[in-house]
Structure formats: structure tokens, C-alpha cells
């Protein structure tokens, strides 16, 4: 599904990613852990095509297509979804309208018929209900006046509706209480299947209790310094990153 | 017989040749003044910059050399800081009344310097000053030096017209606090022009306390240029004058320069006070902050005009302006024109304005606790003003201003 080789990237003159090799097979959930400033969020942004970041080397293939050459919306149409760490506010743009526009843009790219307002609302209402979100979430402006938890749940709602092939969750668990955390995990688990993969960026073991990963990677100083099974996350929770990073250096 | 524009021009013609400094500059200023006249002084001619303030009363006044007054008595009646002071009496520097500061000072009368920032061609009152200025002070703080506090005290009397010309220059990384105090007795005109240069990383705090006689005219025009990383932090308190106009032009010329143009005007009777500012963001990443409050009683009129101008290349500008007016009387009037002129796209600029009376619920709350009406009012007005005065960081200076406000309050009761 996702095949990253020797990926390097920088902001301005400052290198952030210093050679990432990572393969996420279809149907798997991988966790990326690591201390602050290790490049975790950068990886998410680079894969989704944020312009502030310059790719300086390496490759990233997504279902055999070179995603690094695509515009952000083409990557989205190809099935890549980034759940933002700090979701963006769009004043005056209502959530339902935003989502329908996005969904139809993606459907158009796939040559599928667009959904009309009624069809869309039916779909969206079903998802909000499933995610235990109030109906008015759809009526409100995108992320405007949302609490931190609501913003994160809104990202999960978008993911559920847009049905990506690869979801990158950038610290979607931060600032959530245990109930919200479960909702997020359930949202991802519901999508799990042979055609869905996820890259879960997190600081904590907590989320991984509910969203059990196939593999765990530790990112430090722009490189993956260790890879293991779900037990690696538990080990990190106990002993921290320090030893690992020192070991790698 | 009123003096009027003609009288001022005649005064200039009579004195030409005896006036210090660049005579060509004075002649050009006189030509500009002849063309423009006093704003509002000529029927039917309107200048947008003077939309809400007409100098017709100035045009109609008869200014003449006044009998000597007791400057010492006036001075002793003032509350001042225990700090160096440069005292002007009727526009003339009086060494005998001054306590000279450590920083280098020069008299305009001895070393006339008109500077480079002013616009006599665009500003009639600056033209008038340029035409007739005879004295003033130039303060120079060398790079890296903290010049402490310097008070510029102006005492005026009688029916004279005075046109002092000041210059303040701070070298790189220098700092200085200037406290201007203007007071007097009579129906005079004080028309000051000041030019300020703040070099890289320098910091000027500029406090203005205008407590002129309520029969007097006060016009003050300041031009400040702030280089990279420099700060021009100004606060104006207008309490006095029959008619006053305080105009400040600040240009932020280097990146990360900062300007604060805060003010409060408290007026009663038939006073008219106009606070007009322009902040020009001419370099990227500069910030400007402005809080202006008007408290208007009697038949007074308060004017605020504030423009934030952002040049095309001044990206990352952060400009904020708030002006609030409190009307205390059914006959008071406020006119406010906050203005944004933006040519750069990556900026954060906003302004807000509110006009109204004291909050009825707050009044009721205070009175329900047993506080009489008048006292409740005064508590809320003070609270309103306190927010503005909070911008003055130096506690001693803030105390000086608070005292002036208290005295003003006492005078109203009397």
C-alpha cells in the first residue's frame, strides 16, 4: 500500500526527515512513536503534500503511484487522508457542505456519480450516529467554536465519510478523554479491512490499547530507529525513548 | 481685529531675516501656509484631515505680545516628577527655571534644525510653526545610553502665540523617557512641532500631559521615525484647552519596530479635543498598538482619527487599534474615524470602536450596594480610564497622570 524509501525533507534550510524507510502493507495499522521534534508530524505533512515542506530525496509510492508528484487534492482522491493534529477552522463554511463538496470531488475523480444533498445527508447522519456525535455537528461551521475533543471527533467523522485507503492520524489522541479516545479508536477499527491501512502517530500507549497496531516504529531525529510489534509500544511506555535513542546514536 | 492667517504671515514678513535657520525652508513654509490658510478658517474649504476640527476660533482670535506673567507661580502650582526638566515660558527656553538633564541638549535658537520628517507642505499648522519657530530643544541620546527621564514643561500666558520646535534623537540601543507637560493661563496659542528619531533597537517613551487653560488653543504635531527593532511608546492625556489638536505621525521604517499610540481625553464644558494619528507600516514584521479613550461631559466634543497604513512590502504586519468613547452628557459629541489602508496581504490588522454611556447594569449594581449615583458614575468612569492609563508602564509617571485626572475631577466639582 505505502512504500517509503530513503525519504528526506526539510523546512527552509532545516532538514527534518533524514532518510525514512517504511512499508505499510494493505490491511495493516502501523504506529509511529517518538519524542517531540522527531519529525512525526512532518512525515504526515510530507505524505499529504503540504507546501511548506520540501522533499529533498527518496520516494514514496502509494499503491504503486508516486504520490510525491501529486497535488494535495490528487493524493486525497487517491485515498490518502490526514487527520490533523490541530484541525483548521473555516468560518462560514458549514461542515455538511464542506464534506459533501470534498466527497463529491473525490467521487468525480473516480468517475463515480455525485451524491445529492439528500443522499449525502443520509450517509452523514448514519456516520454521526455511529460515532455518537450530535447531529448539529454537521450544521456547524467547520471546526469553528469546536472544543479540542470535538475537533478531533470531527476529523474521525470526515474520515468515516471519505473512506480513505490510508489514514494518517497525527496525534489524534492528544487532549482526548477516555470516552473520546474510544470513539476515535472505534472509528478507525470500523474501517479496518484488507483495503485499509493506517499510520497512527502518537505519543502514548493509551490509544494503542484500543487500536492495536501490527507494527510499531520509533522515529527519532528524522530517522526510524527501531521497529517492533505491539509490545514495543508497551516497552516504551515503561522505559521511555531515551535509552532507545542513545542506543541508535 | 483678529490675527488670522494674514496676521501670521505679516508677522513672518516683518521678522524675515532675523529668524534663525534655513530661510529658504521658512519661505517655502510661508508659501504653503499662505496657500492653505488655517484649517476651517476659510469658508467653504474643507480638508479631509480636519473634517471634525475647525480652527476658525484660532483664525478669529487676536494674538498679541502679552504682558509678562508670573511663570514661577505657574510652575510651582504644577505637579512634576523629581527629574530633570527643560522649562519653556511663552515658547522660550528658561535656563533659570530648568534643571538640565545629563543628556546632550541644544537650543533651537542657537542651533536651529528643522529636521527631515515634517510636512509643512501638507500640514498648515506645521507650516505655521516652520515659518515662525524661534526656540525649542534638541535632545540627543548617544548609542547604548539610557537617558533616563526628561521633562519638557511648557508654561504659557496672556494672548500670545508660541511655536516651539523640538527634536529628539536616540542612537542605536539608546533609551529615553520624555514627559511633556503643557499648562498656562490665558487665551494663547501653543503650536508645537516635534521630530523624533528612534534608531535600531532604541526605546523612547513619550508621555504628553496637556493641561492647558480652558481658554487656550493647543496644537501639537509629532513626527516619529522608528528603525528596526526600535520602539516608540507614547501616551497622551488631554485634559485642558478650549480647542486642542494632537497629531502624531509614526513611521515604522525597519523590521520589528513597534509603536504604541495610546491616549485618553477627558473633556467638559465646551472643550474640543482632537487626537489624530497615522501609523505607517513601511517595513515587514512591525507591530502597532493603540487604545484611545474619550470621556466627554458638558457640551464637549472629542475627536479621534486613527489610520493604520500598511505598505505593499510590509508583510507580517500586526496592527491593532481600539477606541472607545463614553458620553456623560446629553450635549456631548464624539466623532471617530478609525481607518485601515492595507496593501500587503499577509497581515493581521483590526480595529474596533464603541460609543455609548455608562453601563446601566453596572450602575444599578453599584447603586444597589448603596453607592450614590454621582459616586457610582465616578467609579465607573475611573475604571474606564484606568484601562487606558494601564498602558503607562512606569508607575511614577502613571501616578503623575492619575493625579492630573484627580485634579481635573476636583475642578469639575468646584
Amino acid at each position, binding site marked *: 500500500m505505502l512504500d517509503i524509501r530513503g525519504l528526506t525533507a526539510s523546512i527552509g534550510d532545516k532538514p527534518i526527515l533524514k532518510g525514512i524507510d517504511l512499508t505499510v502493507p494493505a490491511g495493516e495499522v502501523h504506529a509511529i512513536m517518538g519524542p517531540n521534534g522527531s519529525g512525526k508530524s512532518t512525515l504526515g505533512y510530507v505524505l499529504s503534500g503540504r507546501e511548506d515542506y520540501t522533499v529533498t530525496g527518496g520516494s514514496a509510492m502509494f499503491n504503486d503511484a508516486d504520490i510525491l508528484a501529486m497535488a494535495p487534492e490528487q493524493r486525497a482522491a487517491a485515498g490518502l487522508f490526514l487527520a*490533523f493534529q490541530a484541525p483548521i477552522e473555516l468560518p462560514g463554511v458549514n461542515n455538511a457542505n464542506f464534506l459533501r463538496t470534498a466527497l463529491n470531488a473525490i467521487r468525480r475523480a473516480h468517475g463515480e456519480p455525485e451524491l445529492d444533498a439528500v443522499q449525502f445527508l443520509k450517509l452523514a447522519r448514519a456516520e454521526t450516529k455511529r460515532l455518537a456525535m450530535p447531529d448539529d455537528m454537521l450544521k456547524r461551521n467547520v471546526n469553528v467554536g469546536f472544543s479540542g475533543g470535538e475537533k478531533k471527533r470531527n476529523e474521525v467523522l470526515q474520515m468515516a465519510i471519505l473512506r480513505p485507503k490510508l489514514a494518517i492520524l497525527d496525534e489524534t489522541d492528544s487532549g482526548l478523554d477516555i470516552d473520546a479516545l474510544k470513539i476515535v479508536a472505534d472509528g478507525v477499527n470500523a474501517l479496518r479491512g484488507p483495503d485499509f491501512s493506517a499510520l497512527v502517530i502518537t505519543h502514548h500507549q493509551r490509544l494503542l490499547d484500543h487500536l492495536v497496531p501490527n507494527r510499531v516504529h520509533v522515529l527519532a531525529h528524522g530517522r526510524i530507529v527501531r521497529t517492533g510489534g505491539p509490545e514495543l509500544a508497551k516497552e516504551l511506555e515503561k522505559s521511555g525513548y531515551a535509552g532507545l535513542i542513545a542506543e541508535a546514536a | 481685529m483678529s490675527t488670522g492667517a494674514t496676521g501670521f504671515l505679516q508677522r513672518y514678513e516683518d521678522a524675515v531675516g532675523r529668524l534663525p535657520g534655513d530661510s529658504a525652508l521658512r519661505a517655502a513654509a510661508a508659501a504653503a501656509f499662505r496657500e492653505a490658510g488655517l484649517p476651517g478658517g476659510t469658508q467653504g474649504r474643507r480638508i479631509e484631515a480636519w473634517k471634525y476640527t475647525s480652527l476658525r476660533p484660532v483664525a478669529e482670535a487676536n494674538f498679541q505680545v502679552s504682558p509678562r506673567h508670573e511663570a514661577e507661580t505657574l510652575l510651582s502650582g504644577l505637579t512634576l516628577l523629581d527629574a530633570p526638566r527643560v522649562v519653556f515660558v511663552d515658547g522660550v527656553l528658561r535656563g533659570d527655571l530648568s534643571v538640565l538633564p545629563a543628556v546632550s541638549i541644544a537650543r533651537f535658537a542657537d542651533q536651529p534644525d528643522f529636521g527631515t520628517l515634517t510636512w509643512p507642505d501638507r500640514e498648515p499648522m506645521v507650516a505655521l510653526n516652520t515659518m515662525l519657530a524661534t526656540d525649542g530643544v534638541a535632545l540627543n541620546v548617544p548609542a547604548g545610553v539610557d537617558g533616563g527621564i526628561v521633562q519638557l514643561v511648557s508654561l504659557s500666558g496672556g494672548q500670545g502665540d508660541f511655536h516651539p520646535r523640538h527634536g529628539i534623537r536616540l542612537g542605536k540601543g539608546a533609551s529615553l523617557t520624555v514627559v511633556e507637560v503643557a499648562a498656562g493661563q490665558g487665551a494663547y496659542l501653543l503650536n508645537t512641532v516635534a521630530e523624533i528619531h528612534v534608531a535600531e533597537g532604541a526605546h523612547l517613551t513619550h508621555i504628553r500631559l496637556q493641561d492647558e487653560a480652558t481658554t487656550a488653543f493647543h496644537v501639537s504635531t509629532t513626527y516619529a521615525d522608528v528603525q528596526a527593532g526600535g520602539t516608540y511608546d507614547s501616551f497622551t492625556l488631554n485634559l485642558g484647552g478650549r480647542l486642542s489638536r494632537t497629531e502624531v505621525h509614526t513611521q515604522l521604517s525597519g523590521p520589528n519596530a513597534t509603536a504604541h499610540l495610546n491616549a485618553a481625553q477627558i473633556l467638559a464644558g465646551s472643550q474640543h479635543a482632537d487626537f489624530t494619528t497615522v501609523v505607517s507600516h513601511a517595513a515587514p514584521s512591525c507591530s502597532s498598538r493603540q487604545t484611545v479613550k474619550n470621556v466627554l461631559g458638558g457640551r464637549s466634543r472629542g475627536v479621534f482619527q486613527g489610520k493604520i497604513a500598511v505598505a505593499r512590502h510590509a508583510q507580517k504586519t500586526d496592527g491593532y487599534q481600539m477606541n472607545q468613547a463614553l458620553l456623560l452628557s446629553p450635549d456631548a459629541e464624539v466623532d471617530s474615524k478609525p481607518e485601515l489602508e492595507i496593501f500587503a496581504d499577509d497581515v493581521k490588522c*483590526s480595529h474596533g470602536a464603541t460609543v455609548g454611556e455608562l453601563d446601566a447594569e453596572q450602575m444599578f449594581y453599584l447603586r444597589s450596594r448603596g453607592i450614590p449615583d454621582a459616586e457610582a458614575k465616578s467609579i465607573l468612569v475611573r475604571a474606564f480610564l484606568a484601562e487606558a492609563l494601564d498602558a503607562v508602564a512606569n508607575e511614577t509617571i502613571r501616578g503623575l497622570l492619575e493625579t492630573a485626572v484627580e485634579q481635573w475631577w476636583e475642578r469639575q466639582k468646584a
Partner: protein
Amino acid sequence: MAAVTETLDTVQSVTQSGYKWGFETAIEMDFAPKGLNEDIIRLISARKEEPEWMLDWRLKSYAAWLTMEEPRWARVDHPPIGYQDLHYYAAPKKKAGPKSLDEVDPELLKMYEKLGIPLKERAILAGVDPDTVENTQIAVDAVFDSVSVATTFQATLRKAGVIFCPISEAVREHPELVKQYLGTVVPTADNFFAALNSAVFTDGSFVYIPKGVRCPMELSTYFRINARNTGQFERTLIIAAEGAHVSYLEGCTAPQRDENQLHAAVVELVALDDATIKYSTVQNWYPGDANGKGGIYNFVTKRGACRGARSKISWTQVETGSAITWKYPSCVLLGEDSVGEFYSVAVTNNHQQADTGTKMIHVGKGSRSTIVSKGISAGHSNNTYRGLVRMLPGAANARNHTQCDSLLIGDQSGAHTVPYIESRNLTAKVEHEATTSKIADDQLFYCRQRGLSEEDAVGLIVNGFCKDVLKELPMEFAVEAQKLLAVSLEGSVG
């Protein structure tokens, strides 16, 4: 919601050339000679078969205009206008009234089609078979250059007691009403352009809603400048008597031409006790090309008088066209508890200049006003909000709230805000807020990450920015307005 999707579709379907309404219709025209003098005014008056008093009124206005100067305070810049180089009267040549669509000048029909007026209404506009068409909700008056060519639904409206007709007809048929109200809101010598209009106005709409009547349908006027070297000077007068209610829409387009054309309209509204007038404009005059060549000079005076207690006048405008827009739809709030509203979206792109806003003059006790202005500047354009809020001594407990937001797209445009706030009543409250911002990069990226193209994302964000205004528009116009916003901003990103 559907409308936004439509906006996006429109953006995708429209080419870079932009202006869709730039066609010229080849219709035989009747012109007055170029230039302006008393004889031209007499000629206009004669063509309109006006009574003597109307001619006198025009001549007096002309005399006033001669003594006046073009206003210079607005932030707009243009070469001198050659007032003597214009035709002040141009009309399609008169033929006998058509019996069926076949007899109507096909060019005229084609024009209506291009303007997007529905087929049934096109027939009605062409003068065929009035009042037999069902399922249409809007009565339309079409003003083509100097004359009103047709007004629909006259009979239905007449039944309700509503008068909706060309103003030239009202001068003849309802002189008492016209005499009573014309020039009472915008005096003939109010300003340079109003005086010019008063002297030479050729047509426009007249609306009278009698006491207690709720107008049974939306009233609408399409203004179209077609002929070359003509000025358009329409005059609209709307009176809502006690308790009456009317919603009026106007749309404007013009051909694409290299030279600038002058449009100087005057609109007067009068609302008596408990009356409501809602006036919506979608202004899409030709804005000139990408290099600033051509386009309409739009110098318009619009003012409403809330004369009655609890009367209400609400202006909504979406201004996307014109090379220069100089326009301040205002409310004089005389009545106790009267209400004035101004909702505005002004978009400028390429080399357009807009200086637009409102005046809210509070005279009556308890009068309230709301101003919401959204300015969007792109390309090399300049967009100025200029607004006055004045609380007079009698305006006890009056209220104003103003929200004024500017959005800059690209770093070559200008966004300016010039509010004037004047209060002479201590119990009156004024609140004003203004902000300037750009479309944030992270907003764009967020939308694109969800699959939207950059242009779609801009359209979506801009529509969101304008939402508070667009929701005030009647449904039919809201859709059109959203499309226009997107089209107007084409080529402004990327």
C-alpha cells in the same frame, strides 16, 4: 448547500475569459445626439411624453449640476469623464406591440436568454401573453439602455393594488405619487451624479405598495447597457405605505467593450409606518479586462427614508462588476424604532476599484441599524469600505452594530476601511469592528487534503467569508451571487 456545489461546478465550467454577459445585441436603436444641454433634456422629456412639471424639475437639476464638481474624496482614480461625448438617450426603435413571440425582435429575445431570464418570462418581457403564465414567482421589469422595455405581471399586481411600472409611465399615470415622493429622499442637488441623473434620467422602475399590502411576489428589474457611448441613468422610486411589504431585486449586466461607460443611477425608497422594503442587488456590470481596459463607471446614489415608526429598509448588495464602483446605499432612520440594514459583498479583481459602503443616519428614538460588509480584493484591485454612522441628538437609545471584514487574495491588491462614527446622543450605542486577513495557507491545505482543488477551496472559503451577507439574499439571487463570486475571482490564485 446545493448552491455551493453549483458554484464549484461553475468555476470548473467557465473558461478564463470570465465575463459571460459581454455580448452585444444588434438592435436598431434610436439615439439622441451626443452631448448634454437644455435641448437634450427637452428632447428626453418630449420622448417620454412628460408633463411640464417634470421638464421643469429636470431643468432645475441641470442648472444645479452645472454649478457642481465631481466628488474627489473616494479612493478611485479615473481619467476625466467626457460628459459631452455621451449619448444621453438611446432606445430600441419602437414597433407596434408584438402579438406573439414570432413577432418580437429575435435579438431582444436572444438577449433575455443570455441574461438567463426563464423562457416564460422572456415571452412576457417581449410583450406576449401577459398574466397567463403560471408558476413564476417574480415580476420583472427590464431596462434596456434608456428605456424600460417590458414589465411583467402588471395585471396580477394591479389586483393586489401594487403599482409596478416604468417610472416614465408613472410620471404620466400617477403624477400625484411621483410628485409627492420624487427627489424627497435624494434631493436633486444632493451630489454631482444625483444632479446629473435628475436632469437626464431616462427610465427605471416605479413601485407603490399600498397600505397593508404584502406584495404577492418578488419584484425584479434587469438593467442592461447595450448601446455604445451611452450613459445609463435609471431612476427607481419605491414607496411602501403603512404596513406594506415588498422585496425588490435588481440585476445588471453590460457588453464587453474597450471604452468605459457611465452608469449613474438614483434609487429612492420610502417606508411609512410599519412598512418593510428589502432591496437586493447583484451588480455585474462589465468590469473591464484583465489589464483594466474598459468597464462600467458605476456612480450610484441609493438612499432609503424610514419615515414611519417601526419601518424597515434593508439593503443587500453583491458587487462583483464595474471598473469603478462608487456607491453608498443608505438609510435615514427618521421613524421611532425604525430599522436600517446594509449587507454587502464587494469583490474586486484585476484593476477594478470599489469605494462602497453605507450611511446610517439615526434621527428617531430607538432606531437600530446593522452593517455587515465583506470586501474581497484580488489582482491589482483596490477595495474600500466607507461608511458613516451618525447618531443625532434625538436618537435616544439608538443602536448600531458594524462588522467590516476584508480579505486579500494575492499581494498586489489593496483593502481599505474608512468608517466615520459620530454620536450626539449619550444613550445611543455604536459598536464597530473591522478586520483584515488573507486566506490562510493552512485553510487551503486543509481543503485540498480533503480533495478540493485550490480554486474550489478558494471558492468555498470566500463563500464562507461572505455567508452572513449571502444568507440575506432571496433564494434565486443567492445561487447567482455565489456563482458570480467564484467567476469574479477566477485566475486570482495560483
